[in-house]
């Protein structure tokens, strides 16, 4: 999957599955403070990401993922390691 396609898919999943408002999707947005994604939502994101990317996210690795851009990078690095 190309990087921009990964980003598009992540955005679609956040809007459709986590029900984030489309207007709030912005790479600089903070997941917790701006998008309101709390610890329980992260649990659901793990399931959604595994189902859509075949990638197992780990709770311990989330500490450094603060913004949406951080999240895009986290997924891209693991789906397209090169």
């Amino acid at each position, binding site marked *: 999957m190309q990087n921009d396609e990964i980003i598009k898919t992540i955005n679609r999943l956040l809007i459709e599955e*986590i*029900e984030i408002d489309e207007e709030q999707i912005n790479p600089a947005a903070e997941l917790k403070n701006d998008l309101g994604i*709390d610890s*329980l*939502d992260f*649990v*659901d994101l*793990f*399931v959604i990401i*595994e189902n859509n990317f075949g990638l*197992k996210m780990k709770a311990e690795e989330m500490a450094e993922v603060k913004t949406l851009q951080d999240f895009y990078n986290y997924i891209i690095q693991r789906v397209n390691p090169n």
Partner: protein
Amino acid sequence: MDHRVVITGMGIYSVIGKNLEEVKDSLYHGRSGIIFDPLRKKMGFRSALTGMVERPLLKGVLDRRLRVGLPAQGEYAYKATLEALKNAGIDQSFLDKHEVGILYGNDSSAVPVVESVDILRNKKDTMMIGSGYIFQSMNSTVSMNLSVIFKLRGINFTVSGACASGSHALGIGYLMIRQGLQNMIICGGAQEINPESTASFDALNAFSIRESEPTKASRPFDRDRDGLVPSGGAATVILESYDSAIKRGATIYGEIVGYGFSSNGEHISLPNVDGPVRAMEMSVRQAGIKHDKIDYINAHATSTPAGDSNEAKAIYLLFGKSRPLVTSTKSMTGHEMWMGGASEIIYSVIMMNNSFVAPNINFENPDESTECLNIASNTTAANIDIFLSNSFGFGGTNSSLIVKKFNR
């Protein structure tokens, strides 16, 4: 000092109506909510009869986070509570300013447990289960979720007492308000409707197998009754102290004047006569009235051969002289189980405030144990000042509530 306890709000999501108006109409016309469910037959049920409700659409009504941990019966309870709060004249700002509690009856939540374990068995990874199932799976799911949705800050727990759950929830709410511990409590009962939760009940051969005539299968007190029909939904009854209700100019729909309870101390599923007699007697004593003041009894009677007989005997022992009107609304709704104790209070209050008794449909012939009762098999005009409502459950748990018409 004992506080008087009144009913200031009611809401219902039932197989005979999605709101009070629809339910009143169904009660008056003796309409049944029982169907034949082909899926159950396919799955291997002995009886495919069940009550049925439509699942509410809450996307766009409730935020995702508030929906994710809410199972189907929680959705029914949310709808019922919305209606109850509306007719109680209570909005969110009232709930924000006052400590309001919740005591809801519920005794199972099968589907979320089955689904989450299926995911585990399939994926061999609990990280694939998601955040909602744990909250959906617990018996306290309804009170847990509603207290978060409505931001309640008073008493908060679920009452589990099998088929007496809803009744006991109202009874305990009544006691708390009477004691002055809380001014207002959202009480009620919720019951899931699905094959997963009733399969092991069907295993007892306890359901009616009159599958060719679903609306005639639930026939409490009738000579040809052959078992109960499972059903469900949710019912909310808002209990409030009389002083609080008067202070805010609330409409009062009735007053709870007695709560009696007992345990049979015998068989886990077969009822007896002594337990129900003691529960009813206690409620009458608490109400401080004579037996002949009870105008109408909403019986527990589920359409089982033994259960209906024993309740008939118990009723006759206490009320044989005064012969109040007796019906079981389960003839129309089926056995609403954990919801029943709360919904049957609503059905009876509707009757009381509209001066009629809904028919015990399908009562065509009595048997030797039920012929002594004054059973209304047709819609009957009646002046009900005081009614008694029974709910009995597995393990021999019994609950009897007495409600009086409110006159200013």
